[in-house]
């Protein structure tokens, strides 16, 4: 009913306004029609009068021209109106000459009449009037210069003090006034306004006052204005009081006579502040903003009502905005907002306030976003606070767009990283957006709020707003790209708060909006069920299980089964309790039942199998343990195996210790296979164990197969190569040289393996020699040298055994040279002796160089053996020299010769001794353990017993060989 009444009232007001406007329009039309009628009568009367008089009379011609001009002007008004009322599309097509044809005709007639008059009656004493018409005509046709010229002429031709003279003066004065030639307008107005001839005096005096003012004659300006003001009270004059009240205050102000201004307005019963308001407005229109601000600011002191204060503030706010008076602008905005709250602002004022708060808020926001004050934190915060305040005002004055204001306020704080402040604003924006049904802003605010919440806001903010943020987002975008994730987060948040009803609701919404996301639904379901499981709410748990079983949720079969298991697990809860209590038998029985139950899924089965394995381990039944652990591993995922890795290591170790190598190795390999691609550290352990146990059990094929899988499982050479070496070693030990050679060949393809292959190759070379294939052995040794050289160039580390093997190869060659040296026997004649001795020295030198080179390989065996060889070579040569007795020579010669040889060979002895000492030092310093150590260390001592096996290695196995 109320609404209806309001509607009727609004309609009434609208219709009234429309009627008033229409009536005014019709009134103008009626008056114009009436005027045209009157003018037509006038024309007829002038014509009739002319006829009566029987001759052309200049005064009648003048009158005729005046009437024609007047009618032309009226017609032009009418044509203008018609033109403007034509729809713009049609208007563009109109021919203006055609539109204004009728008025133009009358203008022309008036013009012609006057021109004929002036030509025919050169002495006509009212020529001024005629020129006045021409001037006016020109003015109408916007021929300003022409108009000015004719007004001037009218003035010259008219009698001094005549109406036309004064009118012409006024017209000229107006022209000059409008052009800003105030000196000229002033003189003309002064002359024209001596007599208060007509009602327009006040209006013209107003212009005169302005002319005075512009010429700096403030007192005259004020006097004239005051006189015009007084006369305006007389109904016989045009009432200029409003304009005068407005401008006089400005005059007073400019003349520095504020007190007089106040006195004037008080005397005339006017509100000083109201006048100053008008002045301020006027100054604004004149572009005198500073003066306007001053005036309006002062006017606030004299305000007499809230209405005035509002009007002043409305004017001031735009000035503050224009001149960047931010603080004042903010204060004024506050004041206006307060008035808005009281409902005191008019619609226009509300619009201005809206514009200002919106503009300022946007401006400050922009400054903050563009990081203008990035390094001025205090200013930045103050600006943000100001922007926020503006946004709040915007929300107040534009409640229908409040959501946008709150959103921008949030954005402002977001821009400066104040997320804790931004979040509540976004939240409010969402709330308002929902209220105002603004989906777009709601979406933006929701997004922004979620982003903000992810920016490290404090706990309270998170607690207060995270869930609303998610909920807000989802209400806008229940099926958006990000929505799935948001549902999950919301679900987690609700679960985190243990708000199960809410979480379940999220789950149901998620299901409704993402029916295809079965996995996620499952996870959510699982969490819900876990919760009930953890809290022991069997009823709730059972209900959910039933819902799943009833296919309310599209879960994958595995999960469905898992749920079943869970329920089943609950049924066998006692089994676990028994296990915990040490009732192994009871526990085993329970687990077996679970395992065997046709309703038990794999998950439950593997758990049961594992638990059974554990129980059998504990009872020492290795066979059962192996069987159940094997089943458990088969069923478990790598992660699950990793989880229980220690137990599995225990199982395999237990099997190994019980000398159940095959079971242990097979279980290890199975586990290795399972966890092959996982990052588990245990992978290496199971690999090594399996390999070692395979080798120990001489299961070379299985070892080789295991080694072949290792790279695929991401194991590095640090693990694989020792495996191969173990494999080769065991092959060598088992005399599986064919396989040995095959393995080496396979490994040879990888250069990385070369340093590692040197030593096994040496074993192969020895075996080849042993079986009478010295050529093949040589080839193998040549390869070893190649491996070594390549490794050296590549700066790869060569295992010590490899270095030893290389040293032995080179030592063999060295020994051959020593043998050659020794085989060259000294003999006389003396020249031959000398030649031979020289050759021997050269050879010895070469041998020494080679030996030192071998020693430098780094092989302990090589070092000691090389030094031994060169010591022996030196000593051997010395002994040969000293022991040589030239045949067929005198004893003196022989004596002298031998003495000479002792002396000559002395350096050899010394060299041999030096090498010996060096070797001893190296042995001690580098902790070299070599079979030649004793040669150096035990010289001249009793023989130390040594045990050498056939293969030259030291048997360290306390248990003794098999």
């Amino acid at each position: 009913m109320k609404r209806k009444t309001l509607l009727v009232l609004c309609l009434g007001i609208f219709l009234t306004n429309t009627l008033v406007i229409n009536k005014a329009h019709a009134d103008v039309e009626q008056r114009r029609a009436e005027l045209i009628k009157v003018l037509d009568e006038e024309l007829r009367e002038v014509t009739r009068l002319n006829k009566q008089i029987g001759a052309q009379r200049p005064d009648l011609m003048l009158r005729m021209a005046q009437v024609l001009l007047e009618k032309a002007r009226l017609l032009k008004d009418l044509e203008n109106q018609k033109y403007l009322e034509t729809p713009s599309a049609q208007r563009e097509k109109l021919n203006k000459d055609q539109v204004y044809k009728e008025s133009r005709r009358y203008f022309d007639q008036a013009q012609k009449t006057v021109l004929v008059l002036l030509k025919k009656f050169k002495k006509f004493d009212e020529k001024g009037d005629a020129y006045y018409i021409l001037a006016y005509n020109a003015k109408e046709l916007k021929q300003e210069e022409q108009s000015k010229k004719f007004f001037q002429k009218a003035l010259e031709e008219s009698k001094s003090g005549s109406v036309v003279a004064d009118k012409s003066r006024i017209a000229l004065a107006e022209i000059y006034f409008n052009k800003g030639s105030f000196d000229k307008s002033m003189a003309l107005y002064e002359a024209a306004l001596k007599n208060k001839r007509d009602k327009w005096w006040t209006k013209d005096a107003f212009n005169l006052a302005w002319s005075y003012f512009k010429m700096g004659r403030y007192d005259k300006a004020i006097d004239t204005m005051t006189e015009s003001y007084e006369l305006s009270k007389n109904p016989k004059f045009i009432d200029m009081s409003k304009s005068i009240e407005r401008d006089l205050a400005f005059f007073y102000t400019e003349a520095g006579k504020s007190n007089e201004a106040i006195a004037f307005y008080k005397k005339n019963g006017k509100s000083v502040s109201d006048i100053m308001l008008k002045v301020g407005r006027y100054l604004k229109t004149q572009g005198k903003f500073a003066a306007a601000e001053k005036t309006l600011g002062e006017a606030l002191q004299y305000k007499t009502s809230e209405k005035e204060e509002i009007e002043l503030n409305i004017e001031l706010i735009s000035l503050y905005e224009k001149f960047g008076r931010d603080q004042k602008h903010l204060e004024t905005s506050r004041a206006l907002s307060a008035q808005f709250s009281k409902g005191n602002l008019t619609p226009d004022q509300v619009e201005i306030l809206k514009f200002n708060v919106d503009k300022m808020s946007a401006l400050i926001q922009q400054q903050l976003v563009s990081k203008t004050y990035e390094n001025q934190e205090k200013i930045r915060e103050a600006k943000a606070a100001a922007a926020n305040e503006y946004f709040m005002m915007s929300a107040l004055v534009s409640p229908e767009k409040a959501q946008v204001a709150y959103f921008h306020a949030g954005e402002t704080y977001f821009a400066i990283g104040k997320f804790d402040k931004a979040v509540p604003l976004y939240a409010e924006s969402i709330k308002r957006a929902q209220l105002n049904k603004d989906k777009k802003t709601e979406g933006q605010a929701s997004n922004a709020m979620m982003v903000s919440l992810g920016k490290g806001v404090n706990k309270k903010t998170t607690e207060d707003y995270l869930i609303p943020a998610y909920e807000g987002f989802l209400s806008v975008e229940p099926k958006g790209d990000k929505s799935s994730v948001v549902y999950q987060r919301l679900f987690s948040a609700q679960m985190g708060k243990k708000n199960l009803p809410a979480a379940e609701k999220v789950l149901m919404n998620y299901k409704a909006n993402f029916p295809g996301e079965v996995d996620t639904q499952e996870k959510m379901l699982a969490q819900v069920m876990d919760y009930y499981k953890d809290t022991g709410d069997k009823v709730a748990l059972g209900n959910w299980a039933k819902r799943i079983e009833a296919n309310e949720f599209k879960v994958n079969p595995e999960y469905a089964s898992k749920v079943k298991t869970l329920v089943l697990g609950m049924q066998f809860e006692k089994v676990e309790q028994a296990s915990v209590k040490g009732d192994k038998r009871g526990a085993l029985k329970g687990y077996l039942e679970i395992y065997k139950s046709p309703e038990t899924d794999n998950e439950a089965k593997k758990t049961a199998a594992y638990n059974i394995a554990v129980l059998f381990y504990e009872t020492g039944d290795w066979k059962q343990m192996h069987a159940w652990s094997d089943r458990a591993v088969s069923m478990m995922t790598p992660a699950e195996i990793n989880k229980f890795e220690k137990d599995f290591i225990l199982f395999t170790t237990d099997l190994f210790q019980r000398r159940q190598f095959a079971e242990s190795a097979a279980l290890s390999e199975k586990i290795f296979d399972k966890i092959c691609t996982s990052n588990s550290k245990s992978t290496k352990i199971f690999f090594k164990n399996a390999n070692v146990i395979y080798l120990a059990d001489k299961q070379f094929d299985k070892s080789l197969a295991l080694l072949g899988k290792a790279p695929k499982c991401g194991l590095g050479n640090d693990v694989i190569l020792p495996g191969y070496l173990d494999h080769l070693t065991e092959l060598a030990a088992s005399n599986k040289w064919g396989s040995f050679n095959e393995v080496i060949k396979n490994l040879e393809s990888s250069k990385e393996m070369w340093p590692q292959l040197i030593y096994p190759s040496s074993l192969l070379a020895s075996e080849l020699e042993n079986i009478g294939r010295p050529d093949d052995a040589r080839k193998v040794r040549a390869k070893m040298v190649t491996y070594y050289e390549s490794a050296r160039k590549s700066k790869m580390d060569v295992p010590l055994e490899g270095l030893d093997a290389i040293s032995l190869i080179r030592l063999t060659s060295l020994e051959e040279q020593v043998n050659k040296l020794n085989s060259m026997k000294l003999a006389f004649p003396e020249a031959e002796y000398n030649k031979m001795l020289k050759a021997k020295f050269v050879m010895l030198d070469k041998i020494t160089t080679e030996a030192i080179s071998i020693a430098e390989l780094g092989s302990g065996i090589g070092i000691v053996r090389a030094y031994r060889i060169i010591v022996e070579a030196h000593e051997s040569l010395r002994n040969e020299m000293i022991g040589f007795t030239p045949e067929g020579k005198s004893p003196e010669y022989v004596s002298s010769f031998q003495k000479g040889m002792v002396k000559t060979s002395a350096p050899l002895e010394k060299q041999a001794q030096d090498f010996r000492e060096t070797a001893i030092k190296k042995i001690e310093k580098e902790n070299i353990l070599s079979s030649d150590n004793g040669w150096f260390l035990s010289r001249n001592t009793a023989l130390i017993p040594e045990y050498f096996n056939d293969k030259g290695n030291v048997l360290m196995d306390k248990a003794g060989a098999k």
Partner: protein
Amino acid sequence: MKKSCLLLFLLTIGMNAQASIQGARRIYQVGDKSRYPQLAAELVQEKMYFSAAPFIKEYLATSRVNDAAVDKVLDDVITAVGVKQFEVLPANILEKSNAPTVRYILAKKAFRAGKFDQAIKYLDRRIEDWHPVKPFALLLEASALAVSKREDKSNAVFRECIDVANSQIKKTDNKDRIRQLQITRDYCVVGIPRAQFALQKHEEANLSYLDLPKSSYIWPEILFEEAWNSFYLKDYNRTLGKLVTYKAPVFNYTFNPEIEVLKALSYMELCLWEDSKKAVEGFYSQYETDNVGYKKFIDSLGKDYRQYYMLVKDHADGKYKENKILSNALANIGRDPAYLELYSSFNNGRDEIERLKGLPNDALKTALNENLRESLSLQRNLIGSYVRGQLQLYAAQVVRAFEDMSYIKLEVLSKRKTELYDDVSMRETGRARGDVAHLRRTDKQYFWTFNGEFWADELGDYVFSLKSECK
């Protein structure tokens, strides 16, 4: 100032007629022109004024006068044949005589020429109160003084005129003479308000006009002046009231286009635009066509005074009634005192013809015949000329009235425009007409709201009660 015609009664000179004719014959037979005054005197004795007039005129033109006896003869002749017969003589000839009537003629001529001081000067030589020309001379003198804005003196002379006229009225029982004196007196009565009017003392004039009784022969024409005075007093309702009096059937003869003009003007001043325009249009529709015929008619007569002379008479016999202007004009002239005097003189002149028939056929008779024919012919021409002049005057007045009416209409339209531009009259609620509250009056004035009927005692006292619609 209305022209008045002076006709003096023949003074008794104590000679018998027959003797006079014989004396005249003797003088004529001598053939001495210097004795024409005696000859004229002899003829005057025989009441043969028109016959005598040429002799005395010839004497004046050809001789030095300065003779009281001659002046006396001149007075007698002029008094009988009217001043018009002698006005045609040049001033230098007339100035030869000191006869009061000649002085009067000279003053009149000077007055007409706008030489008011000269006119006063001609009349300065004392004219005795008993002299028949005295009231006329006083009227002329007062008028000259009034025109010269010597109000006090003129008022005094006007009052003297009233007294002298009243005095002379009492001493005569000749009806024509009494009428002449009464008219002259009444002109002197209105001379005072006219002078006041001229000096824009309208309030005083308003009162002074009331001194003229409605019974006066000239009252109808003075009513118009009163209307003007009321107009100047901005008492437009009274103006209109006075003007409406002319609608009374008794004033049918009145022809004054200005009456309509003043009416239109009064409506205009009351801002009753439509009434004013109606008056203008009414005037145009009533007279525009007739005026064309009227002008054509006058033009067709040229300067044939004889025809003009016949017009009034013919009109009285029922002719020229179709053209309203012509008819009204002729009716008005027929009532005009000046015309009546001229015509009366002419009739008297015709009586001389009978008398002349009784004389023996001799040279004198021939000469007198010639003289009489000449004088009467002149008199008839004077009448014709007067009629022509009046008709042309009316024609000019009509044209002027048209012009005035047009200007009034233009003014009304102009004011209406101003109203429209100022938007003051579009939403008026209606016109309240006829409210006595709008009237003003003085103690001497009555007022009657005109209700469409004319009553003799109310004539001239009607007032309208229209509310001004001026904003």
